[in-house]
């Protein structure tokens, strides 16, 4: 019995128009190679990878071009064959924002020559060796955050209650996981089981939202074929943001990840179906991460679809391959319509964090940012999946009341955007909270600096006092010693004088 039925429901969350039909009508477009690739070295969480190639060097597809730094970190590989044109800093998209990163600019030769890693490409024995391979092969979370998978698995290895494979894909517009599940379900299941082995999980649940019947069907069949007793498939309701890590864990298990901690603290780990697929390719074919599925969609794209895009492909090229822009496109969004961020231009390359590109028309997105005053309707609190009170957070954030922000749980806001969308006063709550988090972090830093300064000042006062006392004591001791020395010398002189006088008296006597 591979199916588990859900007993709980999500508190909060909202139902949104999925906008996924347009991009799921055609199969994934594969085998595309742009003329130039800009491969970022710091596209994942943790430390930037260290380049190991030089300008002018020829590389093959899958050849390592950067090695991981100390964990968490991940390796980077050439997404296609060609020559290194430059190693320079460029603007790249990471999970949450644009960032500057050292990038390897590769002019492709169009041949897509694969790299032969030799014996180093074999899947090793033993958990530690395998995790090292995962790290060097550049596997990072392909759900959008791109956190190095090796570190994420290491943190929970040996104490994992359940491995959750996230096929929810709850955010509108994004459909890359749906298509991957339809086209490669057996590989995903195999990768999931490989992960379960790596962390020693007794249970592995693949969660898929109800609005993906074809994906559910495919994964279910693959799971039945795999016939592994650990493997379960769970259909979850189509609510945003059911696919958020914390919400998914609560939905499936009833457990809550403690505030400020990560799922591994309570024995869970969540991995995206795309990451499971990448792991399968690594374990069975020794292939590192060189591409990912990207949904290219929106009313501003002529032929929306999913694309297997080499890492480092310029976004504009992807749009061109999907029919190009329509005339009424107004915005370019990296990610989904709720948590994605806008891009200023389309020459930005994709990274492992790019799940979706939306070329949006004005009708699809929020146009006006005019606000009314908060009317305390409370819809934001009803919609909040973290059970916060956004209206009270707004008051506290406006007043810069950091104590209130802390007790109201500002840190627990996952910036999902539900509150913005339901607010009748059209207040940009999520952005206010993002800003408040920054101010709060600065405030916390300042408090920490003050506390440390106070401590160091006290220690310094102590040191000075001791050294002063110490010097006074030394002076006293020196004085006493000198006095004693003088005394001793005086006595010695007096004794010598006495001896001399005695001798003189004897000499004088007949």
């Amino acid at each position, binding site marked *: 019995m591979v199916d588990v039925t859900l007993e709980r429901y999500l508190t909060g969350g*909202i139902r*949104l128009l999925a906008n996924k039909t347009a991009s799921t009508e055609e199969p994934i477009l594969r085998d595309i190679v*742009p*003329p*130039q690739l800009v491969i970022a070295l710091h596209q994942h969480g943790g430390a930037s990878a260290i380049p190991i190639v030089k300008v002018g060097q020829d590389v093959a597809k899958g050849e390592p071009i950067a090695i991981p730094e100390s964990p968490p970190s991940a390796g980077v590989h050439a997404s296609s064959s060609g020559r290194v044109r430059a190693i320079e800093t460029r603007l790249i998209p990471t999970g949450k924002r644009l960032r500057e990163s050292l990038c390897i600019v590769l002019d492709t030769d169009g041949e897509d020559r694969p790299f032969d890693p030799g014996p180093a490409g074999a899947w090793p024995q033993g958990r530690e060796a395998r995790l090292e391979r995962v790290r060097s092969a550049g596997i990072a979370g392909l759900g959008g955050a791109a956190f190095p998978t090796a570190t994420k698995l290491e943190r929970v290895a040996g104490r994992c209650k359940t491995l959750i494979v996230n096929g929810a894909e709850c955010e509108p517009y994004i459909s890359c996981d749906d298509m991957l599940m339809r086209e490669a379900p057996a590989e995903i299941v195999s990768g999931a089981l490989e992960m379960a082995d790596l962390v020693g999980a007794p249970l592995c649940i693949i969660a898929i939202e109800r609005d993906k019947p074809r994906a559910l069907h495919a994964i279910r069949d693959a799971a039945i074929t795999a016939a592994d007793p650990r493997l379960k498939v769970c259909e979850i309701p189509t609510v945003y943001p059911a696919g958020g890590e*914390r919400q998914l864990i609560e939905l499936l298990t009833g457990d*809550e990840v403690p*505030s400020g*901690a990560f799922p591994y603290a309570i024995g869970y780990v969540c991995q995206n179906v795309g990451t499971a697929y990448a792991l399968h390719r690594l374990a069975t074919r020794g292939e590192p991460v060189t591409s990912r599925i990207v949904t290219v969609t929106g009313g501003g794209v002529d032929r929306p679809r999913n694309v297997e895009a080499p890492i480092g492909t*310029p*976004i*504009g*090229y992807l749009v*061109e*391959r999907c029919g190009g822009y329509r005339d009424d496109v*107004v*915005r*370019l969004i990296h990610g989904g*319509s*709720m*948590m*994605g*961020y*806008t*891009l*200023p*231009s*389309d*020459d930005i390359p994709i990274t492992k964090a790019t799940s979706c590109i939306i070329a*949006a028309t004005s009708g699809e*997105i*929020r*146009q006006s*940012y*005019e606000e*009314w*005053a*908060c*009317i*305390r*309707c*409370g819809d934001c*609190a*009803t919609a909040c999946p*973290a*059970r*916060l*009170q956004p*209206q*009270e957070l707004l008051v506290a954030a406006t007043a810069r009341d950091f104590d209130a922000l802390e007790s109201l*749980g500002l840190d*627990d806001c996952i910036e999902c*955007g539900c509150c*913005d*969308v*339901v*607010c*009748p*006063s059209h207040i940009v709550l*999520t952005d206010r909270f993002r800003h408040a988090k920054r101010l709060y972090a600065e405030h916390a830093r300042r408090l920490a600096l003050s506390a440390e300064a106070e401590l160091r000042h006290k220690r310094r006062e102590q040191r000075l006092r001791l050294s002063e006392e110490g010097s006074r004591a030394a002076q006293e001791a020196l004085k006493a010693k000198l006095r004693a020395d003088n005394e001793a010398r005086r006595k010695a002189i007096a004794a010598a004088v006495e001896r001399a006088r005695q001798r003189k008296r004897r000499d004088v006597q007949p």
Partner: protein
Amino acid sequence: MSEPEFRTPAASPRRFDTAAAPHTPPMRSVPQIMRRVLYALVPAALAYTWFFGFGLLVNFAIAAAAALATEAAILTLRRRPVRRALRDCSALVTAALLAFALPPLLPWWIPALGGFVSIALAKQLYGGLGKNVFNPAMVSYALLLLSFPIQMTQWLPPRMGDLDYAPLDIVEQVRYSLLDELPPGSTVDAYTRATPLDQIKEGLREQRSFREMSASSMIGTFGGIGWEWVNSFVALGGIYLLYAGIIRWQIPVATLAGLAAPALLLHLVDPARFASLTFHLFSGAAMLGAFFIATDPVSAAATDRGRLIFGASIGFLIYAIRTWGGYPDGVAFAVLLMNAAVPLIDRYTRPRIYGHGER
């Protein structure tokens, strides 16, 4: 098809405007909510006009004009955008609720003053939309009731079967309102009657039994005569608001439950001395209070548990004031009293945040 030449974006990148996430357009807006509340009041307004004449509409017109004018004037003084604020229809909703609370036969300056007070004192003085602690319509009603007790208690009898009914048509209504003139030869007393709530209260005080009074012409089929239908249509509008998601079920259900529980209990204990359950639920402003007045989001509790407490307390206070207090209907004062308690209620009914504390 030959492989087309693809542009290298680096050579000629396309530029875009940026904006903050989320990009999904908001689902509703404040003016939309306010308009729907007004629509929900239409059935009630029709019933009221059928039974009690055009006084409601005259009062609403005057109160709305005064409210909008006051809002415009004060916002200009405060140097805030005026047209935006007027377009959100919140002043109209306040004026509408006030009009329902006022007796139909009034000189024009009372609804005008009411409109002015509700916006100037109870709303703008606190900082405008979203900042008022007390329900503006109820504040102005209470102020008018305390300042002009005579005019504020001259109600009309309903148009029902065999009651002697002396209706005023709309022209006569307006003439009374603006010029204080009635059709020749008549006085105000000829037109006014106490409300069923008032009559029952007087009767109970005089030791008459409720059952005896129920048989009389004061009580209709299930509630106060005429008022039972107005309340029913108000409830209909309220159910529409629930269905449209404009209000949540907690406040109306809790308010009616808070009113129903003591009503049912005490009526069962002593049917002679205490009015029946249906009488309480369908008289006066019970339904209006439960669905439209207590649910004013700005002055109501903001958490779900808080709303239950808020509503139940209002219901109970309505019963208490009606039965033991000095006024025939207690909706306004009940709401105002609980408005004051809202910050406290909110503070202690916050749900446990995800990831905090023990389950």
